[in-house]
């Protein structure tokens, strides 16, 4: 197979649906929030009752413009809404309001890193549309031939981001998707939760001989509701198409549904997708006109994007690439870091602490940084105690544990527990001498030239001082004393 993979290349384009975090729906007043009792977030308009009319929610346009600007698109000053007609029980009007000719954004691109290399993928278009409801084929509620419909999601605003077929590998698709997700999260317009469906990705895939210019017959992959699902499904489909061609077959144009449990994709029945959608301009909505002032307003309110922020962290805080990448994974995490670093004498120490202790704690407790109980200022205080020699890093971890447990501030805990670091040379020398007299064998080894025993002996001194001794001074005293013994 690896030889065949060198013979063929895949041509992949992604269609990413992003649910927008607006208060109300795209064309009506009911709540656009996720969840709730089935059919509780409804109004006559999103239900498509006789006589209702849609009215565009301006906030959705702001959000679409933000995505467009963040992906270097041209913002369409005049765009129109269209009806996409098809029958389905979770589509109450019998058509979805979307954009077809003249979408709100076009001709952009996204730059991102894959395996240390920069990659650019073109953005064909970004358009606004309404989500459909959900059909629930749940046998716990109904007979096997019946279906329930939940229309809460009807009218939830979406932007659909359509890429050019510039992607060649599943890993590139994943990197593109991860970058896009990070961008929409930074823009504050989507939580990026693929499991809940607030971010959804479909892929168009074809293969051709390496270096070919013509496009092969493509298939469309749907139902990949996780990042790993996208990677596995695309790899599966590339493999399937290669095998098909190699065995003398041909790829048929079809839509495939990814089954993550089984690790396979099955073809949808043709009647499930072979629609003529009969797009035409929605006569209930006037063309969307975006003025210079409106565009400027959105432009000037655009937050710093992840890549720009990463570069700034490197320049401003002298962080390594790796740290900057980890800390800019989400906007709240980057905010947390900057708040900590701003109150702390040592930015690198702040980075280390957040990437190590804080992220470990979040992971163990399955929470996000927004739910983390210790404010950045208190982490900075803790690190400043390390910085000025009041405590050492080992004690700092103990203090951190106590902070999480009690909610008290670091200085209070250090005082209460008497954890102040011992830097008094005389006191430390006494401890060192006791340890040396207790470990004559190790002293002999040192005298014989085995320097490695120093580490062991430092550990013994630290243990004897309950970790409170200043490790730097312990090290110095120990070497002096050992040298003295060796010389004697």
């Amino acid at each position, binding site marked *: 197979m690896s030889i065949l993979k060198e013979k063929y290349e895949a041509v992949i384009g992604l269609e990413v649906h992003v649910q927008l975090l607006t208060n109300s729906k795209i064309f009506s007043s009911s709540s656009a929030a996720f969840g709730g009792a089935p059919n509780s977030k409804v109004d*006559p308009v999103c*239900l*498509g*009752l*006789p*006589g*209702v*009319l*849609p*009215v*565009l929610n301006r906030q959705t346009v702001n959000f679409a413009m933000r995505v467009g600007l963040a992906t270097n698109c041209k913002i369409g000053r005049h765009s129109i809404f269209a*009806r996409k*007609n098809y*029958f389905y*029980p979770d589509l*109450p*009007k*019998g*058509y979805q309001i979307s954009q077809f000719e003249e979408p709100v954004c076009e001709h952009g691109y996204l730059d991102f890193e894959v395996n240390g290399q920069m990659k650019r993928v073109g953005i064909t278009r970004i358009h606004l549309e309404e989500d459909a409801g959900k059909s629930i084929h749940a046998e716990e509620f109904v007979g096997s031939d019946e*279906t329930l*419909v939940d229309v809460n999601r009807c009218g939830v605003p979406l932007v659909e981001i359509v890429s050019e077929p510039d992607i060649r590998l599943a890993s590139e698709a994943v990197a593109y998707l991860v970058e896009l997700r990070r961008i929409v999260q930074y823009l504050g317009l989507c939580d990026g939760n693929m499991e809940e469906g607030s971010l959804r990705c479909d892929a168009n895939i074809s293969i051709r001989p390496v270096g070919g210019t013509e496009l092969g017959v493509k298939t469309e992959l749907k139902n990949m509701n996780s990042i790993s699902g996208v990677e596995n499904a695309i790899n599966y489909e590339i493999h399937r198409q290669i095998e098909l061609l190699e065995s003398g077959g041909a790829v048929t144009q079809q839509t495939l549904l990814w089954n993550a449990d089984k690790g396979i994709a099955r073809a949808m029945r043709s*009647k499930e997708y072979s629609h*003529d959608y*009969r*797009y*035409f301009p929605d*006569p*209930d*909505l*006037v063309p969307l006109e975006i003025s210079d002032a409106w565009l400027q307003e959105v432009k000037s309110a655009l937050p710093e994007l992840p890549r720009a922020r990463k570069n700034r962290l490197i320049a401003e805080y002298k962080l390594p690439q790796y740290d900057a990448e980890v800390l800019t994974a989400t906007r709240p995490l980057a905010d947390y870091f900057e708040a900590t670093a701003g109150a702390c004498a040592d930015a690198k120490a702040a980075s280390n602490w957040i990437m190590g202790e804080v992220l470990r704690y979040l992971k163990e407790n399955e929470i996000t940084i927004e739910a983390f109980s210790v404010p950045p200022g208190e982490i900075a205080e803790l690190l400043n105690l390390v910085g000025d020699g009041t405590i050492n890093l080992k004690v700092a971890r103990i203090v951190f544990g106590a902070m999480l447990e009690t909610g008290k501030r670091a200085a209070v805990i250090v005082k209460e527990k008497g954890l102040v670091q011992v830097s008094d040379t005389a006191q430390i020398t006494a401890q060192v001498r006791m340890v040396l007299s207790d470990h004559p064998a190790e002293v002999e080894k040192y005298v014989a030239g085995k320097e490695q025993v120093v580490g062991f002996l430092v550990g013994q001194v630290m243990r004897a001082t309950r970790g409170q001794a200043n490790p730097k001074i312990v090290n110095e005293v120990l070497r002096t004393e050992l040298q003295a013994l060796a010389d004697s």
Partner: protein
Amino acid sequence: MRGEWSCVDLTETYLSNIDKGAHLNAFVFSMADRARARAAEIDGRIKTGDAGKLAGLTLAVKDNIVIKGERAGCASAILDGYVSPYSATVIEKLEAEDAIIIGRTNMDEFAMGSSNENSCHGPVKNPNDPTSVTGGSSGGSCAAVSAGMALAALGSDTGGSIRQPASFCGVVGLKPTYGRVSRYGLVAFASSFDQIGPITQNVADAALLLEVMCGLDLKDSTSSPESVPDFTNSVGRDIQGLRIGLPSEYFGEGLNNEVRQAIDNTIDILKQRGAAIVEVSLPHTDYAIAAYYVLTTAEASSNLSRYDGARYGFRAADVSDLDEMYINSRNQGFGEEVKRRIMLGTYVLSAGYYDAYYRKAQQVRTLIKRDFAAAFERCDCLLTPTAPTTAFKIGEKIDDPLTMYLSDIYTVSINLAGLPAISVPCGSDENGLPVGAQIVGNYFDEEMLIRLGHQVHCQAGEKSA
């Protein structure tokens, strides 16, 4: 007058007229209890001086304008039993001024028709001759006003559905500029054409209702922020120096001689009153019917997709799967004309046909708008017959859709352009059936329709007197 009558008495009179006129089939149902309760409330407000400007006006409402808590059926079996949980904006506005809604009027199914024979409740009969049609699609509303079963009625006009039946029934019917009156709560037939308008016994009543109905509605994106004048001020204004355009295309082949005679007489009188007559041309008129049927059916095919048996209204029994439910529900629930138009509209929007039909028809629409713009550079308004004939016999054209479609030949262009127009009784044929004159105004110039319409109606009154 005040103190000598009460809204309750008036309402009773109209309710008894509805009963007496039951054979006309103008009403789907009367709303007697609701009307009586409202009348009593309004009588109370009249005593305290708090009554609205339409206090005591009994109003019949076409079956496609929704009223909270009431059935809205569009004269279609597919909406069987459907009750609206909200009221149309016009209903809220009219009730806020104390209009009394007295019943729901019959119509062509989903407003598709020119004779009011396409109704699941059967045809409406013309009060002037019960063997003749009322015209359509607002036939029930026009018959109700004509027969004194309501003081006024609401209709909707997509290609002539207010004006043509108003002409056939001998009442006043006004279609406002597209965007003048909110469409929120009007069950859509063709969204870029539909307008709600008043049907009344005289032009002054139309002006009064229009004042209340018009204005920006944030629930309708196509509603206009244009300010609403006091239309009643235009009633009785003279027409000295007014330039009235006569489009030659509206006086050609197919125009019945008696209708032509009535219009000619009207023109003569208007000249005597100081109006100047200007010959104008609307050269793309020949393409109007075709463009109209392409565009309205396209929009309708999409608008009517929601009636699928899944959520409300009629659902076919004994279906084995989803597709069969859709097919059988829609096949059994919709009438023949509606199905014909859904099929036509689906066809013109289909892949490979869109450019040849839908896009081409949109281009024709633009040309027709330009025709009117050019004409309005030479005149203040247009005068035409509303329909090429007077009311025809029930059953006469029902099996010949193309002939039926031609009865809207003078009205559809106005909807393609989005202009306001009024039909006013101006005479009658030798059988005593009414003839209507259509006045077309420039955008948002309903004042012109009221001003000239009132004069035309007066001359008709003088002649018949």
